[in-house]
């Protein structure tokens, strides 16, 4: 299961005074089992790009190939592609509509033609994956849940379709720190345990640094950096220039280096930075 994008450009309202070039000649290949963080400032084209992954937006130029099949090809069944590339929109809780959580989560698989008997199993599995207790929540109305729960139910609605690739557009926006950490942990587990390919769209460096194995930076519709988080964060100046910045711990490392301390350029998490600084401290005491 791989996604390959060749020379993709996307233009909104072509030929009118409101023409906007959202994506400009994007080339990107995402392999199976990757955890890609797609990052960029507001208006950089992230959301437009991910909607190309499952054919919700047709490319103005170029092509998108999912699993060897081009989405511009008329013979490609887009509904089948949408099942394999699950896309969780921004604020997915705004698309909940059914009377019960069960019915809402079952909406996707039902559309796929999953038999009734299997639905329960699918829904239970999906709800468990996002850390909810199926027996406690299934019969409740999705509208009486808390914001964080609603978001998980909405994500479960996509997971119940058993996608091979999970794309999430700003899944942590508006969640409290605890909810955010839990969600990111669950995504990491989906990736490591279930072997799912995950593409996480965000503009939070902290979130992405924690979980992604690869980072793609988008700026004004173009890819300006692509590599492991460590590689990308060494380009701190470029990231600041496009309005993103680096995680605060990396900033701390940079400040320490400027003061002449022998620390590495990049630390991805607070724990890592803590270990480095403690090591430095102990080393210093030893002298």
């Amino acid at each position, binding site marked *: 299961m791989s996604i390959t994008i060749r020379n993709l450009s996307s233009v909104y309202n072509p030929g009118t005074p409101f023409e906007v070039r959202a994506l400009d000649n994007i080339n990107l290949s995402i392999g199976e089992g990757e955890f890609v963080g797609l990052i960029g400032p507001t208006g950089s084209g992230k959301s437009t790009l991910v909607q190309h992954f499952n054919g919700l937006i*047709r490319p103005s130029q170029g092509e998108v190939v999912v699993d060897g099949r081009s989405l511009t090809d008329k013979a490609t069944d887009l509904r089948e592609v949408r099942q394999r590339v*699950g896309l969780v929109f921004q604020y*997915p809780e705004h*698309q*909940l*509509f059914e009377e019960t959580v069960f019915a809402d989560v079952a*909406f996707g698989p039902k*559309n796929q033609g999953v038999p009734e008997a299997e639905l329960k199993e699918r829904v239970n599995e999906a709800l468990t994956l996002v850390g909810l207790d199926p027996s406690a929540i299934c019969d409740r109305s999705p509208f009486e849940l808390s914001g964080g729960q609603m978001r998980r139910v909405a994500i479960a609605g996509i997971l119940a379709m058993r996608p091979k690739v999970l794309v999430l557009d700003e899944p942590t926006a508006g969640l409290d720190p605890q909810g955010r950490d839990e969600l990111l942990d669950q995504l990491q587990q989906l990736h490591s345990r279930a072997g799912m390919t995950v593409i996480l769209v965000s503009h939070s460096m902290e979130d992405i640094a924690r979980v992604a194995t690869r980072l793609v930076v988008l700026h004004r519709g173009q890819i300006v950096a692509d590599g492991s988080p460590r590689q990308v964060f060494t380009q701190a100046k470029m990231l600041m220039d496009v309005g993103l910045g680096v995680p605060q711990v990396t900033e701390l490392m940079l400040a320490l280096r400027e003061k002449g301390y022998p620390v590495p350029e990049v630390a991805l998490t607070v724990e890592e930075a803590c270990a480095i600084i403690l090591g430095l401290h102990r080393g210093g005491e030893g002298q």
Partner: protein
Amino acid sequence: MSILKNVTIGQYYPGDSVVHRLDPRTKLVLSFAFIIVLFLVNGFLPYLWLAALVMVVAQIARVPLKIMLRGLSPLKFIIALTFLLHLFTTRGGTVLWQLGFLRIESNGLAQGAFLAFRLILLVVATSLLTLTTSPIALTDGLERILSPGARFGLPAHELAMMMTIALRFIPTLIEEADKIMRAQLARGADFESGGLIKRAKSLLPLLVPLFVSAFRRADELAMAMEARAYRGGKHRTRLKVLKYTAKDFWAYFLAALAFGIAYFLGRWV
């Protein structure tokens, strides 16, 4: 690909012509007067005169003919139906064509063409109003026109505010509907196939979230307005005070002249 992009309501065509700069009250009153004249006078000649009038105003406003006629497309069915009904049912004059029980007589042709003409003029003239007046100016003008009614308990300001808000949120709701539609498409929803009942049912995943979000937005807007101490129309001052200028009086004068000519053309020619 935006699924709902083709919906155009309250289409304002920005410009800086004399017509654009007229006081919205002038344009509202004259458009209303135009409609009354349209129903008062009969005959092709005055209608040709009125049509020429609309064309001249459109020329001055620099609104392309194509955009003017765009407003007709949702109504082409009604216009065609009006024409056909009168064509086949109005009796009188010479028989032009007959097939079984279907018969076209010359009066029917004239009546059908005349009423279709009236409808087209009605739509084109009123769309000229919305094309050259921004929605905000329009509701502003309406509020001022209705404000004398406040003495008799007419909530002029509230009505205008409601209209402003409604107009303001049309594009927002269209965008929202578009987004929800995509989200449901990503979950394998199917909005296009099946019979009438199946299709109506398939709209539920779109309509329920849309209503929920509309209510949420309304709630938030009400809160935000109250937070800025909005208490309705009393004692509110405005940034742009509407003021009649010389061009408005000229517009009234010329329009009165033109409408008078239309009336006499209908009477004596």
